[in-house]
């Protein structure tokens, strides 16, 4: 009797959890194992038997792959600039929108709209603006700013990609910070005013510490998204000019799907995974420690 009930319980446990297990194994664990396997081979994706080469791919990547090291530098620079700018700008905007302006609802919606659009499309829209729009704007305003080659010069192309990414996603960070600010009790801010703290000191001593949870979430999201940047570059610059705006994710895509270096590309993919893993673990440990202190 008892063992019968236990079996029924087990069956039910299986019925509830098997679907998710199977779905996740099929799209994550099985491909992940295969990635590890292929990273140890030389393979063009066509031949039946990939040739086992041990750790040669990894050696080659670390010893002398200019494409990979350039892409890695690009990604690190991009991620740092993006994380800092998106958070600083979003906090500033959120502070303004928290002042209960009459247009707050409109402003929040306006800044949020690009976030609901596909990044590839956003890249194309901006390509049009940079190429055609700036020409007309330059002609009608006479400003030299519009005459620059925003997608054709290496440093400007970097700035363009950064600007477009910020434009697309700032609304997301903005609403997180607005929610964070709304949870800061008004009487705390008022108490600080009574104590004679000016707006700047009030911000740094009262508001900013209370925003800490929102900052943690936002930095985490900004990091995970920027380290994988791909779509927007694909449609905005296509890696150009002269291959200077390839990110790591785009470099992997180029090797596997455009150069048919399947084994080599998956080795790079594995390196990206390990980098993401290490960064996430470091960040979560710092986050945990801060939580304990608070």
């Amino acid at each position, binding site marked *: 009797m008892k063992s019968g009930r236990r079996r029924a319980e087990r069956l039910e446990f299986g019925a509830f959890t098997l679907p998710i297990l199977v779905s996740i194994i099929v799209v994550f664990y099985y491909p992940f194992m295969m990635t590890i396997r292929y990273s140890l081979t030389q393979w063009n994706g066509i031949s039946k038997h990939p040739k086992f080469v041990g750790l040669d791919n990894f050696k080659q990547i670390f010893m002398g792959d200019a494409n990979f090291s350039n892409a890695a530098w690009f990604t690190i620079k991009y991620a740092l600039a993006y994380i800092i700018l998106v958070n600083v700008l979003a906090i500033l905007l959120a502070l303004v929108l928290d002042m209960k302006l009459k247009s707050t609802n409109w402003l929040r919606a306006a800044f949020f709209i690009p976030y609901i659009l596909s990044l590839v499309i956003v890249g194309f829209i901006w390509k049009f603006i940079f190429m055609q729009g700036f020409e007309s704007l330059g002609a009608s305003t006479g400003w030299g700013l519009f005459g620059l080659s925003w997608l054709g010069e290496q440093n400007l192309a970097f700035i363009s990609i950064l600007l477009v990414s910020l434009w697309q996603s700032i609304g997301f960070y903005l609403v997180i910070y607005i929610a964070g600010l709304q949870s800061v009790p008004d009487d705390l801010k008022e108490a600080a005013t009574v104590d004679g703290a000016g707006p700047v000191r009030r911000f740094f001593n009262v508001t900013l510490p209370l925003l800490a949870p929102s900052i943690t979430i936002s930095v985490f999201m900004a990091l995970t998204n920027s380290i994988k940047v791909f779509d927007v570059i694909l449609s905005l610059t296509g890696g150009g000019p002269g291959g200077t705006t390839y990110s*790591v994710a785009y470099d992997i895509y180029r090797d596997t799907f455009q150069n048919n270096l399947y084994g080599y590309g*998956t080795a790079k993919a594995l390196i990206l995974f390990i980098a993401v893993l290490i960064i996430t673990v470091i960040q979560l440990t710092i986050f945990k420690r801060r939580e304990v202190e608070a």
Partner: protein
Amino acid sequence: MKKKRDWRIILLEVVMVVISLIFLYPLFLTIINSLKSFSELMTDVIALPKKLAFENYSYVWQYINYPRLFLNNTVVTGLGLAGIVLISSIAAYKLARTKSRASSLIYFLCIMPMLIPFQSIMLTVLQMAKNLNLSESTWGLGLLYWGFGAPLALFIYHGFVKGIPREIDESATIDGASGFRLFFSVIFPLLKSVTTTIIIIDVMWIWNDFLLPLLMVNGSPATKTLTLAAYTFVGQYTSDWQYAMTAMVMAVLPSIIVFIFLQKYIVKGVVAGAVKG
């Protein structure tokens, strides 16, 4: 003193509205240029169209077979979403209620993949999909989203189910409900707010997703998604900007319309998802 403050607030308000208009100006330019003829677009991008060229729309509509793409997107998003919500909610409930080693292990295995970047496995996912006959099919693509969306959904549901008192299950058991019936009639309705959050995050993600559809269903026009078709179309029409602009407006307009109507829920859902996730 009071008056001076008001004056400053008004100035700030005006400045902010101007900034927001500049912020949205690229979208405005996209829309007005989608309604211009080729020669008009080439002479001046920032001028308003003299005559509305709706023929751009009918041309692109037919050329990319818009209704078909819209249907494909709906099938992929709908199927993906239904699966994610179903498999994650039932698993979250069982895993949160069962205290055993197996239960913790399964939970851990299911949320771990949140750390795996898609680009690390994209090649092998494509191969696996080909082996299982899931590539080149909108249904197959929808099915793949089950696994890709499940870790985050499980994580969010799990945190929420833990807050539902066990007494609710127990009283339902006394009433004779058990298993799936207990879950769907008693527990699932209590998860409504989290389910909304998950739906909002996942619809925005799947509807706009690019890389997975590019790898899975790029071969034939019958299986393409909206974003994918706009991408290929723009690639072909790099000089005919008016058609490119039209295709982009057609790709983003559904999202913008939905956003205008459901703005409050979308913003709330996105915030809730980020804070819990």
